[in-house]
């Protein structure tokens, strides 16, 4: 173009404003005319600017500087960076603009002042009761005087424990309300493996050896102690005296009293506990004046200095306060209402009143023990809250078990009773104890529980469930009373006291109503205790929610089942304890579910898959057997081999779960419709196609068959203890065959669902009730007993060694029939 371009120096000088006015003007004129120089200049401008400026930070990096600049809190360099970013970033300009609104919005939040209750609390703090008359808050004086009068009234009228210390925190019906001393009377200190038991009558604390309850030390505290608690932070035991309004500290290392602290509170101190951060809480109750809610206070003291930290008012007079270390929540249990509070005593929820409560160890709920007439109701609340459970006897105490569920102490007449309640709110078992129930302590490391009542102490063990009996042998003195189901069904001090602690050997016995340790083992809880009675000798034992068994069989003391969701589980025939051990693949459909000695087999007839439950290890393995035809029968031999019959093949397969070897036995032309094994281990089959029955002796491979006509197709087959073969059919015909001779035959009119042997070897059948009546009937196949009926769906029939019959209720339970009803 012939145009003379601007040099780099000229462009730079122009950018810096260092050209003369004339040269500047000429250069700018050139830039307008020359695209090359214009482009070069622009590039330079950008380059220069970038070099001279503070770095442009990303929006996120610069956010804090923008915010501080907005608040006029940024240093000058920070402010420069912020402003530079803002100049370049429209998004942040918008953001900063919006911040003006944030301040405005925050100012819409309400202002206020604390309520009168806080004013009063602070006033009391400033001028405590003994300084009534100081001018600071004179209007409070009359109220304080009333409170002082109320203290006396409570001591005289409301606290039989403190007023007349007797051997038993009395359980007294009073105007239809049951007054229970739920005061904590026993604690376990794991730091020195010692039980501390308050002997209210003797005004002393006994340090006991857990298990044997042998008195290691006796620590007199004097006064009228009402409850005690463990301060694990300081390794001390705190004993509260309601009358003298103080608590005494016992050093657990030396088992000596090391001091006492007065409790300054309006009202009678009734409960003491130690919070999760070590603070000492003393709850004091004042008698409500007419028409007002009961007023209680909680004095919170520093654990070490014992200085008062705060005083709170709560509008409930708690009998018991239970703190959940998991959630820091607490329940304040009173007879009218139980309040669930957080750690600042803010009410989170209201629950039914009661006498005692316990948080579940799984952190999913709380159980409240309430009197209902002369009996007890346990109300559950929380994320897992079963329906309320009613128990016979008056409520005394409740503790949570580590494996879930609770242990409950009750009083029935002059006797005590301890009931184990499952996590799903079912009574799993119970035992009687010699003395009336009282405070209850549970030691989760040994599974032992201790009931204390005034001066009496009794210890037992929470049941030995199938797995805990084998894996957790009792470790303390009570091992002398093995957790046998029969060990303590009717305990008495003379028969169940172990030799190590003869009641008369106590050196303290002359001094006071001495602890007379009685060690008892908790009888195996009987599932009947918690099952619903649905007829004479017939019960329904609910399964944990969601379990709906559709096939079942018995192996040892457990019923094994598969539920509709293909979960494999066991149900203890004695305790009702239910356990799910595995879930089968969702497309598995168990057609045969048969038990051997240490295995239970589930066979999917369509695919030939075999699911093997090892009942020793509680594990499940699944195998594909590669059968080429649907399975038409399954049975287990005495050697634990699984026998399978194939619908379209004339041979039997025998599969060994230990070696996983498969053997086959030829049946000639027979087609098996049903299979069973007799006592001698012979395989017995029914052939509906050829109207035959046959026997195969696997040791000799000898096959014997005979023609045996029947109506319908075979639905159940069994050989009883006398060697009689029983065959049930789809038409409801039941046939018997003995020594190749056709015997009794009768018709129950509906397809026979199952045949099972009771412990005496007698065959029973289960079949739907005819005539359109919903439900099932079961009876001995020989007709020796009347048919018993179940009003509901039933699947399978099996007997426990104790003679109880079990059938699955696919709605979520097991039917249990006892012999009494027969």
């Amino acid at each position, binding site marked *: 173009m012939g145009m003379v371009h601007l040099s780099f120096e000229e462009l730079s000088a122009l950018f810096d404003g260092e050209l003369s006015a004339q040269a500047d003007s000429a250069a700018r004129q050139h830039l307008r005319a020359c695209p090359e120089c214009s482009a070069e200049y622009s590039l330079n401008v950008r380059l220069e*600017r970038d070099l001279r*400026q503070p770095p442009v930070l990303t929006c996120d990096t610069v*956010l*804090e500087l*923008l*915010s*501080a*600049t*907005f*608040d*006029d*809190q940024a240093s000058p360099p920070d402010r420069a960076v912020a*402003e*530079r*970013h*803002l*100049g*370049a970033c429209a998004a942040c*300009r918008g953001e900063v*603009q919006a*911040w*003006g609104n*944030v*301040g*405005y*919005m*925050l*100012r*819409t*939040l*309400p202002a*206020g*002042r*604390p*309520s009168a*209750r*806080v*004013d009063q609390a*602070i006033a009391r703090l*400033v*001028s405590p009761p003994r300084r009534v008359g100081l001018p*600071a808050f004179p209007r409070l004086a009359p109220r304080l005087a009333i409170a002082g009068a109320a203290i006396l009234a409570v001591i005289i009228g409301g606290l039989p424990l403190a007023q007349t210390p007797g051997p038993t925190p009395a359980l007294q019906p009073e105007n239809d309300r049951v007054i229970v001393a739920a005061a904590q009377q026993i604690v376990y200190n794991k730091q020195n493996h010692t039980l501390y038991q308050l002997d209210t009558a003797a005004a002393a604390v006994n340090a006991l050896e857990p298990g044997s309850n042998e008195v290691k030390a006796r620590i007199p505290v004097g006064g009228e102690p009402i409850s005690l608690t463990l301060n694990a932070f300081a390794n001390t035991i705190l004993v509260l005296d309601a009358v003298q309004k103080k608590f005494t500290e016992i050093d657990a290392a030396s088992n000596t009293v090391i001091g006492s602290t007065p409790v300054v509170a309006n009202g009678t101190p009734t409960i003491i506990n130690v919070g999760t951060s070590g603070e000492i809480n003393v709850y004091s109750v004042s008698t409500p004046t007419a028409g007002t809610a009961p007023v209680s206070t909680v004095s919170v003291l520093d654990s070490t200095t014992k200085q*008062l*930290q*705060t*005083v*709170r008012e709560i509008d409930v007079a708690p009998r018991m306060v239970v703190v959940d270390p998991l959630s*820091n929540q607490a329940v304040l249990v009173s007879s009218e*209402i139980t309040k669930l509070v*957080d*750690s*600042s*005593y803010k*009410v989170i*929820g*209201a*629950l039914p009143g009661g006498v005692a409560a316990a948080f579940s160890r799984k952190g999913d*709920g709380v159980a409240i023990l309430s009197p209902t007439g002369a009996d007890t109701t346990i109300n559950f*609340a*929380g994320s897992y809250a079963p329906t309320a459970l009613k128990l016979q006897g008056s409520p005394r105490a409740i503790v949570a078990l580590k494996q879930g569920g609770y242990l409950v102490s009750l009083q029935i007449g002059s006797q005590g009773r301890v009931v184990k309640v499952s996590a799903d709110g079912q009574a799993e078992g119970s035992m009687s104890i010699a003395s009336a129930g009282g405070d209850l302590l549970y030691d989760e490391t040994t599974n032992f529980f201790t009931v204390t009542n005034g001066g009496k102490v009794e210890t037992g063990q929470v049941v030995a469930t199938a797995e805990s009996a084998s894996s957790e042998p009792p470790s303390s003195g009570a091992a002398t009373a093995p957790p046998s189901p029969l060990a303590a069904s009717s305990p008495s001090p003379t028969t169940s006291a172990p030799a190590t602690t003869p009641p008369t050997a106590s050196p303290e016995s002359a001094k006071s109503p001495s602890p007379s340790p009685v060690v008892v083992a908790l009888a195996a809880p009987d599932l009947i205790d918690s099952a619903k009675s649905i007829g004479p000798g017939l019960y329904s034992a609910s399964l944990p929610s969601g379990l709906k068994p559709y096939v079942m069989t018995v192996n040892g003391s457990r019923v094994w089942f598969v539920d509709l969701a293909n979960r494999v589980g066991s149900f203890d025939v004695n305790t009702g304890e239910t356990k799910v051990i595995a879930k089968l693949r969702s497309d598995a459909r168990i057609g045969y579910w048969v038990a051997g000695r240490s295995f239970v087999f589930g066979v999917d007839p369509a695919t030939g898959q075999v699911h093997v439950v090892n009942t020793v290890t509680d594990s499940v393995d699944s195998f594909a057997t590669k059968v080429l035809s649907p399975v038409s029968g399954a049975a287990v031999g005495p050697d634990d081999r699984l026998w399978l019959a194939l619908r379209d093949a004339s041979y039997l397969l025998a599969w060994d779960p230990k070696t996983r070897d498969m053997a086959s036995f030829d049946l000639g032309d027979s087609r098996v419709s049903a299979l069973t094994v007799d006592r001698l281990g012979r395989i017995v089959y029914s052939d509906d196609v050829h109207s035959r029955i046959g026997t195969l002796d696997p040791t000799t491979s000898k096959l014997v068959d005979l023609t045996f006509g029947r109506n319908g197709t075979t639905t159940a087959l069994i050989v009883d203890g006398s060697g009689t073969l029983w065959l049930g059919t789809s038409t409801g015909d039941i046939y018997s065959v003995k020594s190749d001779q056709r015997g009794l035959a009768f018709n129950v009119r509906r397809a026979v669902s199952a045949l099972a042997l009771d412990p005496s070897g007698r065959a029973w059948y289960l079949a739907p009730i005819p005539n359109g009546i919903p439900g099932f009937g079961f009876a001995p196949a020989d007709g020796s007993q009347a048919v018993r009926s179940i009003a509901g769906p039933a699947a399978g029939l099996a007997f426990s060694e104790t003679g109880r019959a079990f059938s699955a209720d696919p709605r979520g339970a097991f039917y249990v029939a006892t012999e009494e009803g027969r």
Partner: protein
Amino acid sequence: VIGGSGRGAVAFAALGDAGNTASRVADVARGFSDVQLVALARESRGEALEVMYGAYKSRIYTFLLRLLSDPEAADDLTQDVFTKAYVALGSLTNEHRVLPWLYRIANNAAIDHVRRRRRFTWLRVGKLTGTGEEPLMPDEHGALPERDQVRAVLATLPAEQATAMLLHSLEGYSYKEIADIQGCTLTAVRSRIARGRAAFRVTYATTEARGPS
């Protein structure tokens, strides 16, 4: 100068007025200066507490109420704050400024409370009976339509951020003073306020305002 810093400065100046007009009540309690209050505390803790409570109870309560949206908790914590202050009055020195000292106690109590509250979620209150026990929120200021939303949005912020924002925007404390109250560094305060403010704005913008129910 080529660049946009001029515009930015204008923006800051314009917004600065609107964004930071919190009125600072003189930190003087019923005519007592901080030094006098400390001296009074040495003479009579009770009287000193009485004076402090009378002068600052509304400030502390309002701070807690705004932070927690829970009058009962604000009540409880106010009582805690002054009870703790009462116990600790002896430790006050002439170097202490009383109101920030109270805010420091309140800040700790509030943050503890919020942390605990977040842990307390396992109970489905709907399952409990008699939920009439739940205190109702008194609202003597009339129902501002956005107030509930502001409360709700503030509650979504980490407690440290929310307290820092309130201390600055409503109580008028400088970042340095807030660092003293919160017991953290200046950088931490700067970050808390910036993150809190940004999160507040975004959350507020993305939630629909609901009228008072």
